C-alpha cells in the first residue's frame, strides 16, 4: 500500500478487528467483525457511527463570497440561510460533475464546503482559480475530522454524548457549537436515509468523541461497506461511479434541483441529457456490478446495448439485488432491461427511487 493516509481512528479500527481497505487514498475500515449485513441492519434499526475523516472541507468567506461561490457551484445560495446546508454539484465547463458537495452557510458570506476525499485537491484548485483572490479560501481538511452518526436512535446517542438537545435541528440544518472547549458542527444530514447527524470537529478531538459514542448502548461502528449498501438503497449517487465528469447533474437525476438564479459555470450544459441514471430492481439475489452492460429487453431496440451499471449490490433490507445504471436517454423510459453480469443475464425492472422507502431521515423530531 503506497502512502495511504490515515484518520485519527485507524488504531481504534485495527484494535476492533476492522478489515481495512484503500479508499480514495485513505486506509479505511470496510467492515468490522460483525459484517456488512449486521452493520447495515444496525444503522436501519438502531444507530451506527462511521469514520468519515477522509472527506474534504473548505472554508470560503469575505465580502462577495456568496456571489463568487454561486458562480462555480449549482447550489441555489439565494435561498440558503445561515444554519442551513444544501447538496449540489461543482460542474466543469461541459456541464459534467467535477464533484458533488454540500455547502453550509455559516453566516452571510461565510461558507463551509464538504467534498469527496478523492476530489479534494482537484476541487480546491478548480475553485481557487475561479474566485477573487481577495476572498479567504482555505482547505481545512487536514485539521477537520468528521464522524457520521446514523440511525433512528442517533438522536438519543448524540444528545447523550454531547449533553445538549439536537431535536430542534431540521433535515439539512446545522448548528455551530463547542464541545469540551473545541469547535463542533452538528449537522442533521447523512448518506444512509436514516435520521442522522454529521459531526465536524478538530482532528485531535475525533477519537475522544468517537469512543464516547461507541460506548452508547444504541451505537455500533459501521464501515464503508455498509455505508455503500445503505446509500445505494436510497439511490444516493457515489462520485466516481454514479457521478463523473462525463455526466451532467440532470443525467444523474438532479435536473429539478438546479434552481440557482446565478450564472454559474456551464449553466446550460448541466441540463444536457444524453443518458439517464436509472434505478433497477433485480428480482434475484445475484448482483449486477459496476461496468456490467445493460441491454433493452422490450420494444424495437430489443437486445441493443443501451447502458452501463454504475453501482450494484444485494440490498440487505429488501432481500434482492438493486443497481443504478446510465442508460441512453432514448431507451431509458422502458420498464424492462437485461443486465449482462459476469455469470448470468439478469432481468431488471426500472423503478423509482428510493429503492428503500422506510428511512427515518426526514423524521419530525419536535411537534411544530
Amino acid at each position, binding site marked *: 500500500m503506497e502512502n495511504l493516509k490515515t484518520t485519527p481512528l485507524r488504531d481504534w479500527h485495527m484494535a476492533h478487528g476492522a478489515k481495512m481497505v484503500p479508499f480514495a487514498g485513505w486506509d479505511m475500515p470496510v*467492515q468490522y467483525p460483525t*459484517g*456488512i*449485513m449486521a452493520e447495515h441492519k444496525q444503522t436501519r434499526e438502531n444507530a451506527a457511527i462511521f469514520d468519515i475523516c477522509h472527506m474534504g472541507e473548505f472554508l470560503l468567506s469575505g465580502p462577495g463570497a456568496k456571489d463568487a461561490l454561486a458562480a462555480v457551484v449549482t447550489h441555489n445560495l439565494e435561498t440558503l440561510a445561515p444554519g442551513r446546508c444544501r447538496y449540489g454539484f461543482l460542474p466543469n465547463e461541459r456541464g459534467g460533475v467535477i464533484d458533488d458537495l454540500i455547502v453550509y452557510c455559516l453566516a452571510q458570506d461565510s461558507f463551509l464546503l464538504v467534498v469527496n476525499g478523492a476530489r479534494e485537491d482537484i476541487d480546491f484548485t478548480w475553485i481557487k482559480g475561479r474566485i477573487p483572490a481577495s476572498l479567504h479560501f482555505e482547505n481545512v481538511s487536514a485539521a477537520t475530522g468528521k464522524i457520521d452518526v446514523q440511525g433512528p436512535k442517533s438522536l438519543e446517542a448524540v444528545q447523550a454524548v454531547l449533553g445538549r438537545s439536537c431535536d430542534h435541528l431540521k433535515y439539512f440544518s446545522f448548528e455551530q457549537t463547542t464541545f469540551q472547549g473545541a469547535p463542533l458542527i452538528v449537522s442533521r444530514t447523512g448518506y444512509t436515509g436514516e435520521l442522522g447527524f454529521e459531526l465536524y470537529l478538530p482532528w485531535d478531538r475525533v477519537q475522544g468523541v468517537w469512543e464516547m459514542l461507541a460506548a452508547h448502548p444504541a451505537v455500533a461502528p459501521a464501515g464503508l*461497506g455498509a455505508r455503500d449498501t445503505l446509500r445505494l438503497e436510497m439511490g444516493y449517487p457515489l462520485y466516481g461511479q454514479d457521478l463523473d465528469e462525463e455526466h451532467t447533474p440532470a443525467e444523474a437525476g438532479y435536473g429539478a434541483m438546479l434552481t440557482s438564479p446565478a450564472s454559474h459555470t456551464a449553466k446550460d450544459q448541466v441540463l444536457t441529457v444524453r443518458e439517464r441514471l436509472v434505478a433497477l430492481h433485480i428480482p*434475484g439475489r*445475484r*448482483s449486477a456490478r459496476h461496468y456490467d452492460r445493460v441491454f433493452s429487453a422490450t420494444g424495437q431496440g430489443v437486445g441493443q446495448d443501451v447502458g452501463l451499471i454504475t453501482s450494484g449490490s444485494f440490498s440487505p433490507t429488501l432481500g434482492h439485488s438493486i443497481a443504478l445504471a446510465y442508460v441512453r436517454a432514448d431507451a431509458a423510459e422502458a420498464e424492462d432491461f437485461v443486465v449482462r453480469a*459476469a455469470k448470468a443475464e439478469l432481468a431488471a425492472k426500472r423503478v423509482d427511487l428510493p429503492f428503500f422507502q422506510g428511512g427515518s431521515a426526514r423524521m419530525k423530531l419536535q411537534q411544530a
Partner: protein
Amino acid sequence: MIPKHLHYAETHEWADIEEDAVTVGITHFAQEQLGDLTFIDLPAVGKDVRQGEEVGSVESVKAASEIYSPVTGTVLEVNTALEESPQLANEDPYVKGWFFKVKLSEEPTGLLDSEAYAALVVSQAH
C-alpha cells in the same frame, strides 16, 4: 476452524469423503475472506463434475468468487437451504453450510490434509 477429518482444495473448498458420497463446501477461511454471502450458485443435481472444474459461484456484498469441485463424480444433492439463506455458509461452513454432494467416479488426487491446508491459509492470510 480447520476440521481434521476433512480434505481441502487449494481453492478453499473442503471435501468430506465418505463411502457413499462426498460432501463439499467452502472453508471457514474462504467465507471469512468473502464476507457476508448474499448469493450462492450451485451445480444442478445430476451434473457430472471434474476435480478442479468451475461448478458454481459465490457472491458477497463486496466480492464474487468461483467454486471448483474438489472431486470427480456426479452431483447427487445440493443444499437448497442456501438459496434463501446463503449466510449459513458464513455461520456454519462445515455443517449447515455444505454446498453439494457428489458420488465419486474417480479417486481424488492432490487434496490437502488439515495440516497442509492450515499452512496454506497462514501463507495467504495477511
